[in-house]
């Protein structure tokens, strides 16, 4: 809704300004060039249309575009008209034999720039205005260094409060001791004899306990049961790696990808839809985005505040992207693959034993279960960890409780009709479908 409104507003502004300019369109032509466009609008247009291949200060698929207008004018003597034509129809220009167009085309591996016939001259002006002088994010700049302080403040205040409390508590203890001492002194002064010997006459409690056979028996049984309980509990977690969060060769943050940027799990783990394996994405999948996302620009105000607070800096993340480039053999300078690859040896987090057969597509595609059901809040995990115990009991419980999603699936029609009649239920659990049979997972 917001976007639509904004666009509406945008076109109104555009319309108004066009109206304004059209009055003196001929006389003002040169002036318009000089006055340029709106850098803020330009930024949006740039991000929508250009950012996949261009950056301001860096060579990517296409050249860096900072100050492109001035640069072209100075170095090549090309005016804005040239740029208009180029942006709107670059392949045409290459064909027409324009020398600089062909030079650029050759320089960038003969990858022709997409033609943008829909951009108006004004749009291009806006973009150029942005490339000439990007609206300063510096407005937020000064706030930047402050932000880390904000979360640290409650930390300090908490400590203060705790310290004060401890002080108060200490004072109380001292006061109590003093009062006690004074009272004793008063008592002594008054000749009151404090009865200490009485306690010594009593049978020590442990002796009394030892003499009471019933109590001993009960305690022994209790201790045995308790130790049995804990021993069992301890032994049952042998081989269960819940919470296993190994250090990976590349610090890949699911939080940033699936959480902050809301990338669908199955965009990268695509084989989960059709295969037993969810699959660790191959590096070419990473490069779909990371070809143009070459650095991490965490917004300390936004969702990355938490990461920054945890000590993960923008430089750190950018360094991890460099590791990806190294592994996949991506030469950032020349924007091309070198062919020297180094497959990444990820540490597997979820290890099902070989004798258990698990099929992702069965659960993801057929049953429509959310990934988070078994993998937990992955979108919040900075470091991926094993959420579920992955024990057989855990599987079985879910199969007992979960109803099978059968609507609209022709396969289930007959089975559902017959089975629901047999069990006299409307919805069938996986267990009723035979999901508890040994051979369904062990073969």
């Amino acid at each position, binding site marked *: 809704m917001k976007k639509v409104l904004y666009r509406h507003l945008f076109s109104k502004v555009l319309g108004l300004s066009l109206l304004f300019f059209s009055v003196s369109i001929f006389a003002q032509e040169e002036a318009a060039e000089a006055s340029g466009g709106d850098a803020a609008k330009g930024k949006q247009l740039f991000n929508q249309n250009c950012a996949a291949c261009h950056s301001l200060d860096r060579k990517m698929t296409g050249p860096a575009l900072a100050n492109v207008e001035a640069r072209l004018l100075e170095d090549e003597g090309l005016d804005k008209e040239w740029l208009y034509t180029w942006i709107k129809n670059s392949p045409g220009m290459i064909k027409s034999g324009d020398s600089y167009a062909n030079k650029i085309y050759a320089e960038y591996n003969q990858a022709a720039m997409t033609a943008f016939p829909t951009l108006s001259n004004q749009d291009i002006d806006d973009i150029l205005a942005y490339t000439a002088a990007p609206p300063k994010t510096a407005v937020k700049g000064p706030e930047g260094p402050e932000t880390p302080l904000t979360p640290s403040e409650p930390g300090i205040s908490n400590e203060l409060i705790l310290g004060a409390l401890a002080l108060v508590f200490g004072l109380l203890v001292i006061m109590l001791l003093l009062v006690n001492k004074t009272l004793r002194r008063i008592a002594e002064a008054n000749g009151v004899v404090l009865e200490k010997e009485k306690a010594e006459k009593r049978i020590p409690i442990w002796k009394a306990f030892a003499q009471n056979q019933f109590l001993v028996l009960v305690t022994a049984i209790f201790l045995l049961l308790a130790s049995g309980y804990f021993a069992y509990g301890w032994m049952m977690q042998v081989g269960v790696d819940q919470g296993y969060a190994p250090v990976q060769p590349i610090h890949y943050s699911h939080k940033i990808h699936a959480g902050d940027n809301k990338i669908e799990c199955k965009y990268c783990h695509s084989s989960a839809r059709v*295969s*037993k394996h969810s699959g660790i994405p191959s590096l070419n999948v990473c490069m779909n985005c990371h070809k143009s996302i070459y650095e991490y620009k965490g917004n300390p105000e936004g969702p990355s505040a938490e990461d920054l607070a945890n000590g993960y800096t923008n430089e750190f993340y950018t360094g991890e992207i460099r590791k990806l480039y190294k592994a996949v053999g991506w030469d950032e300078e020349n924007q091309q693959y070198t062919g020297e690859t180094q497959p*990444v040896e990820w*540490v597997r987090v979820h290890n099902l034993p070989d004798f258990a057969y698990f099929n992702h597509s069965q659960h993801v595609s057929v049953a429509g279960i959310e990934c988070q059901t078994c993998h937990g809040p992955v979108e919040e995990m900075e470091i991926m960890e094993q959420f579920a115990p992955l024990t057989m009991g855990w599987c079985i419980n879910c199969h007992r409780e979960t109803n099978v999603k059968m609507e609209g699936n022709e396969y289930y029609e007959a*089975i559902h009709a017959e089975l629901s009649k047999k069990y006299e239920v409307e919805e069938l659990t996986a267990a009723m479908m035979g999901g508890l049979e040994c051979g*369904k997972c*062990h073969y």
Partner: protein
Amino acid sequence: MASNKKYWKSEAELNPNDSIVETLRQNEFSEEIPVDEFLGDKENLSASTTNRRDFLKYVGFSTAAATVAACEGPVHKSIPYVVQPDTIVPGVANYYATTIADGFDFASILVKTREGRPIKIENNTDAKVNGSANARVQASVLTLYDSKRVQGPMANGEPIEWKVLDATVRAKLGSLKGSNRQIALLTQTYASPSTEKLIAEFKAEFGDNVNHVTYDAISEDAALNAFNAAYGERALVDYDFEKADVIVSFGADFLGDWQGGGYDGGYAKGRVPKNGKMSKHIHLESNMSLSGANADKRYPMTAAQQKIALAKLYGKLNGTNVGGGTSDVDEAVDKIAAEIRKAGSKAVVVTGLNDVNAQTVVLAINKLLSSEAFDTENPKYVRQGDVAKVNKLVSDMNSGRVGALIIDGVNPVYSLPNAEDFVAGLEKVDVSVSFAFNNDETAQSVGYVAAASHYLESWGDAQLKKGQYSLMQPAIRELFDTRQFQSALLTWMGSDKTYYEYIKENWDTAILQGSDWNQALQDGVFVASASAEVAEEPVAAPVEAEEEQWEIAPIASSIRALVGATSQGTELVLYSKVGMGDGRQANNPWLQEFPDPISRASWDNYVTVSKADAEKLGLKNHNVANGGLNGSYVKLTVDGTVLENVPVIIQPGQANGTVGLSFGYGKQAGMQEELATGVNAYTLYKNFSDVQSVSIEKTAGEHEFACVQLHNTLMGRGDIIKETTLEIFNTKDHHEWNHMPQVTLNHQEIPVTSPDADLWEEFDRSIGHHFNLSIDLNACTGCGACVIACHAENNVPVVGKQEVRKSRDMHWLRIDRYYSSEDTFEQDDEKKESMDGLWGDNGSLGGFGEMEDPSVNPQVAFQPVMCQHCNHAPCETVCPVAATSHGRQGQNQMAYNRCVGTRYCANNCPYKVRRFNWFLYADNDEFDFNMNNDLGKMVINPDVNVRSRGVMEKCSMCIQMTQKTILDAKREGRVIKDGEFQTACSAACSSGAMVFGDINDKESKVAELKEDDRMYHLLEHVGTKPNVFYHVKVRNTNEA
């Protein structure tokens, strides 16, 4: 009780004055133990900081550490692709259509690959000819991962670069160009239009001195020559046994490897009784072959007798007197002639006699009958070997007329009967190159070894039958630095084309007639329409044109020659086993462990001898205490060539006066030691004749066989393999020939399947799927493709000869073979029924003893047995840990990780189908087969567990396959169609004997088969209610 016995260690001890004895008595150890050296060094001892207590501490600590460490899971690495190929999804299998054409086996097949690794061979059901994989083709995927492969080109045993080899060969070829010394190509049969064209171009490039010799290790020369004389083309007649009502075979094992095989599908279709009719199969042969075992009437005869019978049959059918007087085959011939006359054009006669006269007469008979099953219009090209040219080449080599010799796909030093001549000739060849897969005998004799690619790494094409084309495409990149012969030829001809481009070009211009190449490649097969066949003719023509015109005697002289056939002494009949073929895959442990369908012995070849001959020669077979079969050794002498220490198996049905020996064994070079088994029968293959006159001599010692079936007869237990004759089947009610066992309840007989006779409450299986496997004993030929398919699909381990001998074979699926003790199984039943008391003529004590011996010419029956998946399974009730349990879908499930190995289930199984892992068979040097090396492990199916030591395993009814089918349907939201459910065995079965499916789907084939009158369960009276059922075997004993 003190003993006064004196034990002495050596002879020297007997001499009391011997000084050595005295010295030895004084010194316990022959060499002094250097104790002082260590303990005497006080300095060293005191300097050492480790004292006894420390040592104990370390021991204690390391034990504790090991214990704690065991609680921690190991770290698993997971390495994804850098760039994932878009056709590969990890965990999802891809199938590619390809073709095996290795010179012996020709078939259009599908290859199943997982993560880019070929792991299984499946039948290509689109193919009209040879679309089914036999046991060897099924196993060929493991040969790809042979650890003994040649991994790169070699010169004199040293590794070299391909470019060195290329340079050498090109230089030599260049110098020979236009000279009078030969450039010889000695190759396998390719049946490949593109290879033929390429070789023709090679000839054009290097001149007329290029001599292409095609060589089949096991020759079909006579059949090719006979066909050539009659029809002007070196090819083989194609037979469609489905169309035949009467099949008469003179020694042709057409269910085995006769003329390239592939006939079992059509044969089996005609063998299933339909509308009261089935084909009748009459077989005359010396050895007991697979075809003979399936025959309705089998006559054991020597090769000479077969020839006489064939000639007389021709005479009878033609109404002429062929002479030959009276002989002992007359009666048989009369009967056969009557059958054939009755069937008319619905009869077909085939022969496996490697004799041009016999082959000519057979062609004449079929033509005379105008047999419908006889197709000379579109012949087969799967054998093209030319004995005369091979012999010529060997003599040319020896006379120094060959300058360069390039060998591909054959191993002549191993398989030529005159191998010594060949080796001697090789010395006179300047440059000899062998495209070798293993460092075999030939590779070790030639100058250069060109490492050959496996067919799953190669491009290729084949024309198996005229107009029926098939494409070969690689399913994996070359594992090693190997190259296929055709690519090398292209390189040596100076072409920059790849063989792929060459084939594509050839297909686009000459074969496809405008059809889509990609479509043909996807299908793997292409059928040319009639016009293309004419266009194709010139390609085959050059081969024919340069053929020396073979002198074919007219029929009359052929007949005369046949009638005059005599055998001198004992005939040795050489044959090939379905498991080993010509021996090119001898280094394949699956095939070595595959039990021969007839003898049921694995890991060996042996001489098969008839009982009468064995008694004459004093040869014995007996079982020793651990159950293993032992047999005598003999020495075979053929024309001066001696084969020592050949073990003997007494073979029921072996014609008296003949012995059999199979090819393919006795390979030594390039083999893993454990797999170098048997003796080399090729040394006796004189003049490429499979019948030789032999003298047999018993030698000392006993051979230990690994035979998986020790009891050979059914003992009159007619309810295990139910049989009837076509006459009874057609005329009587099925209760008579397929009797349901009865039990008595309240003094009344009720069927054993009645719910009243049951201890258990029946589980309602009418909902969802209920899997059943149907096995038609009429269609099953016993070929064993299912055994290997099961091996591959389910990661069944190979256990080795010694373990098989101890009955520890792990095959989940076995094919039992039974002989009748009387002439027929029916007579066995009668004999058992008529037994009376313990003693006397009809006494059971003597009677049963007699029934243990198979008849001289027994009836044979095959029965595949795997886990029967009993609904009331005896194994499930006795498992103390509930490791085996039943599923709703009817599968008896086995949870390996739950099994503690009590083996109680196996003891309680009436079918004896459970297999126990006595050892860890993977990653164990004691079992150095494919699961013990990284290469061989690539064949493992990732969807099935590799079982560990101490657990029970058995057929799972391929639950991984049924589950996958169900999941695919669920994902696509559709109902499963009949035929989608398959098991490895049913998918591999080319004869249609095994049908798998869901009996709750009332429209399905298996549901229909279950309602059939012939349906019965194995050991029905036990009341196990199996989900595997059989169909009563019907024998066509109707006389004309």
